[in-house]
């Protein structure tokens, strides 16, 4: 039975070989001589329009990279970091990453904009609705329009909160895990790696247990 399988494999292999042999042979020429190529553009001379576009593109990409939309996976804290007491000298350590603004500040999490199942996880209170505005130097008319919009979805948020209780079926944690540093430095507000099952001070015992598996 094993041979049958191998035979089939060989048969397929032969079939593939025959397919390539059917193509007609042309001797391969490494450096063909009589080929005319189009003139290569001279990149030393960049037109001004192109320079402006390149600069604009680079600015946009930098903006996106430093925006709240750039989601990074939070580095899992090592177990020793959990257990360590924060030292006075830690305050003077330079932070490796600058803070990112919270994603919730920039999204209008209403059912009209996003599917309800994405908003259900936790109620995201918008602290600063100014950031939602597209043009911060807006005219007074736009200012009034936005003020009205704020009032209207304050009412909607209450409705969403009532709907959420009836609809949610998922087993996830109620806490939001936004993988950036929040504006508050408190661990309480960071909402990262809350795992009630783990005991930080007795983690070493559990490590030994893993060797039995």
């Amino acid at each position, binding site marked *: 039975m094993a041979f049958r399988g191998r035979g089939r494999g060989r048969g397929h292999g032969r079939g593939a070989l025959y397919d390539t042999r059917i193509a007609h042979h042309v001797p391969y020429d490494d450096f063909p001589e009589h080929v005319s190529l189009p003139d290569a553009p001279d990149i030393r001379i960049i037109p001004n*329009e192109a320079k*402006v*576009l*390149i600069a*604009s*593109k680079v*600015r*946009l*990409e930098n*903006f*996106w*990279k430093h*925006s709240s*939309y*750039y*989601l*990074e*996976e939070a580095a899992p804290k090592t177990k020793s970091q959990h257990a360590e007491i924060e030292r006075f000298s830690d305050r003077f350590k330079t932070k490796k990453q600058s803070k990112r603004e919270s*994603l919730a500040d*920039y*999204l209008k*999490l209403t059912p009209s*904009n*996003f*599917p*309800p*199942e*994405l908003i259900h*996880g936790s109620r995201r209170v918008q602290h600063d609705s100014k950031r*939602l*505005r*597209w*043009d911060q*130097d807006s005219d007074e008319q736009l200012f009034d329009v936005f003020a009205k919009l704020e009032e209207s979805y304050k009412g909607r948020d209450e409705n969403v909160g009532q709907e959420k209780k009836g609809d949610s079926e*998922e087993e*996830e*944690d109620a806490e*939001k*895990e*936004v*993988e950036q540093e929040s504006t508050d430095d408190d661990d309480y507000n960071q909402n990262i790696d809350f795992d009630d099952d783990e005991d930080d001070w007795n983690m070493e015992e559990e490590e030994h247990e893993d060797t039995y598996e």
Partner: protein
Amino acid sequence: MAGQCGLKLAVSLITAHFGDLVAKVCSCLLRRGTLTLQEIIRFTELSSSQVKNCLLVLIQHNCVQAFSTPRPAGPGGVAKAVTQYMALFDNILHRMRFAKFLAVIREDLGPQACVAHVRSRLGLDAGVVLEAMIESSGQQKAKDETPGNI
């Protein structure tokens, strides 16, 4: 043009703009087609909150479209609407040319007059583009605006 090279380009664009997590979700949607939230969580092996945040970002930037389809009731069950997500391949590729879009709009309508047009053309989150625009138009105002200078 959704060939393999196109998919790779789209994924690399999303990676450059929004990071690896969002790119993973986007890649999953591009390669497997329309999926539900649970399927995305299963295929990407990310946490549900991570997937949700990634989808929020992608929807905000009009790279993913969410739509709900009613599913027929199971045995003894109630018919419910299931939300599915679809990657918008063309829109992702268009992000490469946002600088050109802005240049054209600015040339046509002037730096201050294009708020509404940017909004309508670039989807939900023109705010991102708009902030960049206002910043660049502010820089332009600092220089002398000569006619013909974009």
